[in-house]
């Protein structure tokens, strides 16, 4: 096993994840924590929170299918072992975000219909581009699509959500902190493992860059439609957060320069898109892939 891959062993994963930051958690948060009344009692916020959580489940289901599907295509035991831990991480994310839907009042019998109703079609297309590569057993494109593009997007989205809810929803903020720690590890593996494979197979660059461009397009389209739908809920959330702040609650944070207490949906869409795309450029550059700017959706 090469040196860096030994850092991605199951032994290390066991010590850092289930026996580390997940110890004493239940569905990713401290036992007993609940969704706040300001979400559960406000129909506008509740509907928007369910819609947002649906996108998280859809994204994590894609990540579960991709990481498990890539195990057979992995060229060595160490990569298979890492992808096995990632598979379980993604399954856990599916489980905890699904549990959140139940906590928000979605009935178990209505889970699939709720997902089908609210899944963003652009996010579904994003997933299809990736899973097509996985189905072909294309390890290089699959890992770039999964561990750089999908995980890079998820990482920034989770960070933004965590900043937005940290003062008002400790349960969800805790859930997100565990997933962010997982995503950081996944992105690290993608950069480390694929860099050497791209060097060995430079002929694969063009195909991988085409996939990245296509995925980035569907990602931006997803952000656009999500923020367009969330306008009234964001305003409602900001109004309630300000009221809670007056009662001693923590003030909403800033995220990448955006004041979450006052930012409009358009501003937040711009900040999130810029943040994710900048990350893509840096991470793709590290593995020898040239970032391709997608068309504006």
């Amino acid at each position: 096993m090469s040196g860096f891959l030994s850092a991605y062993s199951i032994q290390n994963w066991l010590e850092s994840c289930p026996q580390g930051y997940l110890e004493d958690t239940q569905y990713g948060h401290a036992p007993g924590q609940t969704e706040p009344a300001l979400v559960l009692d406000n129909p506008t916020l509740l509907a928007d929170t369910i819609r947002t959580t649906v996108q998280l489940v859809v994204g994590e289901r894609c990540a579960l299918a991709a990481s498990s599907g890539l195990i057979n295509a992995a060229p060595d035991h160490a990569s298979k072992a890492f992808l096995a831990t990632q598979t379980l991480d993604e399954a856990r994310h599916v489980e905890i975000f699904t549990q959140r839907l139940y906590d928000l009042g979605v009935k178990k019998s209505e889970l699939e219909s709720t997902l089908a109703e609210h899944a963003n079609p652009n996010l579904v297309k994003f997933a299809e581009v990736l899973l097509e590569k996985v189905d072909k057993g294309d390890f290089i494109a699959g890992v770039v699509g999964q561990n750089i593009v999908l995980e890079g997007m998820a990482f920034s989205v989770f960070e933004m959500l965590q900043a937005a809810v940290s003062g008002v929803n400790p349960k969800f903020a805790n859930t997100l902190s565990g997933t962010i720690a997982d995503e950081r590890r996944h992105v690290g593996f993608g950069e480390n493992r694929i860099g050497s494979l791209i060097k060995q197979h430079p002929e694969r660059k063009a195909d991988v860059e085409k996939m990245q461009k296509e995925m980035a397009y569907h990602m931006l389209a997803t952000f656009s439609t999500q923020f367009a739908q969330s306008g009234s809920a964001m305003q409602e959330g900001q109004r309630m957060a300000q009221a809670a702040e007056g009662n001693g609650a923590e003030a909403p944070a800033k995220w990448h320069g955006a004041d979450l207490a006052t930012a409009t949906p358009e501003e937040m869409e711009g900040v999130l898109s810029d943040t994710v795309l900048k990350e893509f450029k840096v991470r793709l550059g590290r593995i020898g892939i040239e970032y391709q700017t997608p068309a504006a959706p």
Partner: protein
Amino acid sequence: MSDPHDLPKEVFLDEVHSFEFWFQAVAGYLTERPNGHDPSIEEADLNSSEREALITTLCNYAIGETAALEASSGMIRFAPNRRAKIFLATQVVDEARHLEVLLYRLSELGVTHLEEVVQSRANRSLLAFRKRLLQFVDGHDWEAALFAQNVILESMEFSVFQAHVERADPITGDMLTGIIKDERRHMGFGENELGRRLAETPHIRARLQAVKKELDPLVLDTFEDTLEQVGVERSERPELGRSYLASVERLGFAL
């Protein structure tokens, strides 16, 4: 954790197939066995032929665990429901963990170039079994893949590992004891999932019979080879072969 058997059926299935349940089940013995075995156990004094036989045996266990890893991961995509997907994800990590600790044990025995050595010592029947199992997976054949993987392969490993533990050096025995605990959970999932399907759609029994008939010779041949390496007397081997068939039968697949 309270006894999950007290829960209503659907809640029970959600519970036992969850990440949370997996974590509670494995946390104890994983913590006690960094790299798969109790670090305080001292290496036994193996002679050259014993060491070589153990290396060959562990190489074939690694082939079996790789097959299980590749199959269980490939099955997630077409598993029929969320709880099956999540259970299989826990099985994926179990299988990868088994592979990792087997490779670690091989390195403790002085093996370098692990991937090449494992391939060079692979039993042909086991490789043929692996190939057929992955064909079921590639064909998204849920019943056949689950039967071959969680009933036949897991039962074979369960029987062989149990026989080996009785004769193994202390470190290998401790490692296999941990692995056996996981195999029980995997067999339970296969039994439960296929049992329900057989009850709902009895016609799949004929298909599974055909799968078993095709795979049994490969399993029994692998069995024979491995038991010889492990040091099981020739006279005892048919009994252990019957034990494997009986464990499949106990799962409801006498077929």
